[in-house]
């Protein structure tokens, strides 16, 4: 049965029927859900997020052709493993931005350019996205980041250095900043 299912996902990918491929991956913070489309990585679910709900959301917003297909996410998993081991500072992955729009997407694209081991303020992200006064909106763009870790919203802090929030919970944000040497371990 397993062989039959593997063959099925392979053929689905070949025939262009695999709109959303997903798998789970271990991380030091717990299991991650990784999902990609033919365009690139579209969603990273953090350990405290409900995987079933995320998959339902992808079915609704991207396509119901959602299949568990670990092989499609090998490269993503490899880069994340290296990142958590401290051996990779820049992800080199194609991203599919379709789950964010307009101002939010501009904020997230700006966040994607924050270098490893550095932090920025929500105000600065708002300014880079073209509206300095939309600090709150920039904050909520971070909060709704569909591709956390790879789009490093954990590098955005409050002006003055307070941590702000994190979709994966504050201990995870602290852990990531410690990993990157921003906070002392």
């Amino acid at each position: 049965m397993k062989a039959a299912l593997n063959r099925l996902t392979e053929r689905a990918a070949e025939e262009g029927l695999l709109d959303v491929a997903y798998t789970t991956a271990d991380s030091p913070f717990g299991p991650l859900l990784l999902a990609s489309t033919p365009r690139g990585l579209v969603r990273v679910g953090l350990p405290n997020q409900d995987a079933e709900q995320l998959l339902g959301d992808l079915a609704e917003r991207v396509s119901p052709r959602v299949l568990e297909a670990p092989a499609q996410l090998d490269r993503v998993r490899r880069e994340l493993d290296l990142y958590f081991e401290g051996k990779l500072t820049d992800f080199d992955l194609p991203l599919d931005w379709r789950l964010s729009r307009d101002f939010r997407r501009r904020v997230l694209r700006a966040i994607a350019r924050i270098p490893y081991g550095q932090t920025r303020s929500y105000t600065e992200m708002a300014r880079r996205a073209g509206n300095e006064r939309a600090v709150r909106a920039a904050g909520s763009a971070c909060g709704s980041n569909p591709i956390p870790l790879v789009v490093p919203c954990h590098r955005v802090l409050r002006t003055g250095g307070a941590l702000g929030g994190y979709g994966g919970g504050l201990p995870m944000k602290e852990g990531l900043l410690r990993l990157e040497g921003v906070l002392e371990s």
Partner: protein
Amino acid sequence: MSDLPPFQTLIDEHAGEVMAVLRGAVGRGDADDCFQETFLAALRAYPKLTDAANLRGWLITIAHHKAIDHHRAGGRRPLPVADIDEAGGAKDDTRLLGAASDSGVWEAVGALPPKQRAAVTLRYASDLPHAEIAAALGCSPEAARRSLHEGLKRLRKELA
């Protein structure tokens, strides 16, 4: 957009049953290919499906179409009548087919006309009630009952 669940849930919940139905309908050797064809066809059609109320029935209907295609492509050859000594005494139909895990009976089922075969397989391999068989075959419950009855009659005769 739609209320369709992720396709993976259909696989998780129904792949085993689809495979069992196909093994009954086309035999173990060809079930794998029909299984691929069934799920690829389902995947192709899935985003446009308007009614997600009976996904199981929908998949099993596709499986039956694929099994029928398979038999047509191979030419419907009459299969050798099975040796059913062990089930010979069974009066009860459920036991007739239920006890007959031996492939001979399923080969005889495989040689039935498509509707009868589908009705028999759905009833005894998938344990569907008449109403669901009717839904899967796209006919009335009476017609489903009739196909099942005719199929069993023929089987009894062939296997007697």
